[in-house]
């Protein structure tokens, strides 16, 4: 299986060693730290960025400058009593955080993070990533319904409505990228950005430049999909207490939180791959030690490390903007959000596809 798939990629992943179980172990070793550590760093960054933008210090006590605050939070969550409301649907209630969390992990399996560093380069990688990220909302809906709490129910239903409204612009924006790259494989998309030239010139561009509109649509839609402010109506702590998470406590609550931060990371990583040229530092500049196509493949250890750092840097930049928006904006109303999606974003996304398709044929 992996032999067939690796033929599709520009180069095979370095994790695809001959021993099947060894390869599986290596891939898990790549994905799990990516899922459990990077969101923690993003969470810490959110604490600190929000604090400094709001004229305060944020966490300072746990570890130097509060760096271990989220670790301490995690320990606290594990120790807390796991409360299941008496009227709750016990099984659904207990399963909901898992149903939300697992897809958020699975999306990382197709994300290329550095030259030759990815778990699986699926031919339908983009399709898989967008499809699996939508499954999380089922967990949210399950949690909202099973809690037997009216606030939770409101939150769950709002989350479902929001997903339906924002899935469409998200997919349409991503479709334009697939058209331009002529592939759904995420590695191919990175590769085609490294070799994409403006018109007949020698100027290398990432897709964010020809598709700035698509990138903006994708960014806004992913904010809505992740329930990040200003689209955090499913949580809306001043209205719905804590939305679908109201009745959750302890480790289950932590799983929902981790889903949110993991989602921030995976969506940012997806945007990095689709629009920001993956691990390429600047358009047109090859990574040190790389001599593959476009200067971003066949790298040595140094190139892989730098490439991974660049990807992480781009992820942090995108999540930083998410935090910045959270600090600045109030929350929209659910009906305003729906209206915005169907009357503004979907038409714009269709226009974007049209423009990209025409440009593709013309040049």
């Amino acid at each position, binding site marked *: 299986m992996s032999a067939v798939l690796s033929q599709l990629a520009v180069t095979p992943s370095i994790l695809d060693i001959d021993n099947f179980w060894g390869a599986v172990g290596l891939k898990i070793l790549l994905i799990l730290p990516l899922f459990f550590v990077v969101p923690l760093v993003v969470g810490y960054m959110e604490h600190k960025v*929000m604090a400094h*933008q*709001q*004229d*305060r210090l944020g966490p300072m006590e746990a570890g130097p400058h509060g760096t271990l605050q989220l670790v301490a939070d995690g320990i606290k969550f594990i120790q807390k009593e796991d409360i299941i409301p*008496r*009227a709750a*649907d016990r099984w659904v209630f207990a399963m909901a955080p898992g149903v939300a969390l697992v897809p958020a992990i699975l999306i990382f399996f197709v994300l290329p993070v550095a030259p030759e560093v990815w778990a699986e380069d699926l031919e339908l990688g983009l399709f898989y990533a967008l499809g699996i990220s939508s499954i999380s909302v089922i967990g949210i809906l399950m949690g909202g319904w099973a809690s*037997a709490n*009216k*606030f939770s129910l*409101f939150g769950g239903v709002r989350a479902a409505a929001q997903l339906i409204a924002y899935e469409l612009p998200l997919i349409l924006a991503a479709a334009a990228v697939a058209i331009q790259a002529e592939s759904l494989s995420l590695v191919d998309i990175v590769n085609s950005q490294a070799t994409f030239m403006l018109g007949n010139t020698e100027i290398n561009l990432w897709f964010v430049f020809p598709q700035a509109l698509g990138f903006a649509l994708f960014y806004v839609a992913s904010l809505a999909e992740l329930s990040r*402010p*200003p689209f*955090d*109506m499913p949580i*809306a*702590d*001043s*209205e*719905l*207490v804590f939305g679908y998470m109201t009745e959750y406590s302890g480790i289950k609550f932590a799983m929902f939180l981790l889903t949110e931060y993991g989602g921030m990371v995976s969506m940012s990583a997806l945007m990095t791959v689709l629009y920001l040229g993956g691990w390429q530092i600047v358009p047109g500049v090859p990574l040190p030690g790389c001599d593959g196509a476009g200067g971003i493949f066949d790298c040595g250890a140094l190139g892989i490390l730098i490439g991974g750092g660049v990807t992480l840097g781009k992820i942090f930049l995108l999540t930083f903007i998410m935090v910045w928006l*959270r*600090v*600045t*904006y*109030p*929350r*929209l*109303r*659910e*009906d*305003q959000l729906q209206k915005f999606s169907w009357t503004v974003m979907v038409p714009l996304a269709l226009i974007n596809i049209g423009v990209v398709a025409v440009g593709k044929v013309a040049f």
Partner: protein
Amino acid sequence: MSDLETRERIHPGTAPGEDIALEIIGDGDFDTAEMTLSIGPAHPATHGVLRIIMEMDGERIRDAHPVIGYMHRGFEKLAEHRDYRQIKALVNRHDWLSGFANELGVALAVEKMLEMEVPERAVWIRMLLAEWNRILNHLMFIGSYAIELGAITPMFYAFREREDIQYLLESATGGRLHFTYNQVGGIKVDLPKGFLQQSTDIAATIRKRLQDYKDLILGNEIFQARTVGVGALEREVALAYGVTGPTLHATGVAEDSRVTEPYLKYGEIDVTVPVGEHGDCYDRFYCLVHRIQASLDIIDQVHDAMPSGPVNQKLPKVVKAPEGWTYLRIENPLGQLGYYLESDGTKTPWRLKMRTPSFSNVAVIPHLLRGTLVPDAIAVLGSVFFVVGDVDR
């Protein structure tokens, strides 16, 4: 009740073979049932312990019933057993955000009954601190209203300013929230050295930072989308319910007892009352922000006019109001605060009735909530400006 019974009661659809009686509302396209949602008494948007029972059709509110009394502490009755020195420590607690204005009201009522002349300097100091108290109160509401609409930052900015002001007031009164600074015949002690300079500096800082609030909140597109045209209060309804303060000013009525029935020395200075036009959430918030500006103008005028001299007068050991009654209203930060004081000539009042602005403002909430959506309900609740302690007393 067993687990199963509870579950069936809450999720009737999960009980097999059971007939569900759904009341069909709307035009019958969907089978929907009405749901009762109880917001509060412990809910983040109710500023304490107000409870609102909402009858919901989906997210739309068909009717709303506020339930008050969770914070009834019996201040009116307690006041009948305290002398006038002690009452001021009671009244600055019923509306904990406007402590100074409340104790000022009681002091003025007793002085009115005694027909007592208060030293000039004490009057001006009272005005200065009353305006600072107004700004403190409004900053709190600016922060909390923004947080109810989902913007978290203004709260921290507002508290940064509040900290400065509280530090200033603490230097004079010793209190940050409950000042207990007024007394019959004047104020407790004179201002500390350097107070006026510090006050001038802080006023200048806040005047500068006020622009940030206007940009960050009033100028924000999402804020406008959430508040313009939402929860519009008609002028007649507002007057009929006895709504006062910024909530009334937003409807276009400039009724402010500092202007229409001046007390202290408000008659001698310029007092601007910002008014709105449509009475919606945006106008209410606009009035609130611009009242800070107006208060800063008053503070500047007070700084210029501050006379020297004594700040209180020698009183008998026990102050006794003469037999009779009086009613006195002042402009509390949230609206008209009235004290009806009846005395039988002893050292405690026979009856002290409080007419508090929050009580009247809460009364108009059902009218505003009918037909709105849940997020709008929160926007309305935050913008009628009430303090639950002031509602229940």
